[in-house]
């Protein structure tokens, strides 16, 4: 029996601009990831609880809530506080504001650089998770 193919890493993508969300979803899927999309804080928290992503890639500003509130929710999570979080923003955020995030990318972004950072964060997270749980990510 052939060995089971490990599931693709899962990314939770939070972006309120529907066009950009659809494109980023295409971009990540075509780069070898599974992606769950959300358009605001409420849907993002629900998706985080349900989907258990390997990485959260989130816009900082959206109409209801913010990426920073999502980051705080994740860091306070009893079981998955170490999930890597990468913030995206059109502005240079103050260092204090993004403390606790694993990565930050300023929009409009260099796509290659974004994908490289995403791959590195997921690899690091999977390695840590693998050591802790002795399971493949």
């Amino acid at each position: 029996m052939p060995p089971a193919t490990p599931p693709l890493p899962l990314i939770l993508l939070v972006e309120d601009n529907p066009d950009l969300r659809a494109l980023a979803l295409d971009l990540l899927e075509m780069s070898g990831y599974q992606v769950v999309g959300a358009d605001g804080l409420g849907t993002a928290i629900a998706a985080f609880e349900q989907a258990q992503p390997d990485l959260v890639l989130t816009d900082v500003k959206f109409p209801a809530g913010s990426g920073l509130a999502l980051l705080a929710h994740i860091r306070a999570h009893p079981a998955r506080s170490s999930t890597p979080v990468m913030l995206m923003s059109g502005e240079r955020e103050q260092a204090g504001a993004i403390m606790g995030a694993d990565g930050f990318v300023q929009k409009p972004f260099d796509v290659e650089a974004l994908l490289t950072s995403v791959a590195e964060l997921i690899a690091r997270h999977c390695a840590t998770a693998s050591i802790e749980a002795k399971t493949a990510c």
Partner: protein
Amino acid sequence: MATHYRPSSPGLTMIEAPASAARNPRAAPKMTDEGSDRLSLPAGFLSKLAHETVGHLAAVQASSYLLRKHGREISGAREQEWWSAIQKAGSRVQLIMDRLCRLEHALSGAVQPAEVDLALFLRDLAEQARLAGPATEVALDVRVRAGETWTGDAGLLEIATECLLSNACKFGPPGTVAVLETRREGDFLEIRVTDAGPGLAPDEVARLFEPFFQGRNAKKNGGCGLGLAIARAAVNRLGGTITYQPARGQGTEFRLCLPAVNRR
């Protein structure tokens, strides 16, 4: 004799040298710089502007990357979606730039009062809105008494009214009629625009005139969420008010209440 001002053609509004805006006790606080004669941008406006614009630029970057990297592996339909995303982002940025020019004019452009033939002016504006809008087959019924005039800045009146007519064309269901009518109330002119569109949810009403705010029903119809904020700035400059209420049955009703003679 009334001067016939035709609304300017769609596109960029010319910016003239800033002039002191008249004090307006009823101006909404968000558009007023206390202690100054100049109206100003609301707090956080530039930050929201950057957020919106950069989002569209990021869409262009993502689309062009996808086309370059994966354009040959995917179906023609998907490829078209990515090209369309670039085109759409460009149109949105262009619209934002156009609206910013209008906002600049509404906030601080030179005011040139003159007598305006309202029937001709508003019919021209309605026709432009109908032609510029999507093919939604919404009819615009302009009910203005022939020969009725108003004295004030025609450019500001155009900015204030154009957005209401454009929204009526965009959001009205096909086959419905949007109505623009005028009425005199003492020293004031009331311009009322009613449409049969989906209207606003109650929790959205308080944010209606906020820059870049779009109601849930409006998001799928394009636009950038600046039109009503700019209309309000223009109305404030004219010394009037703009109000919203749900229309009877279904739809929206906007009322502009302007001093009948505005020579400031």
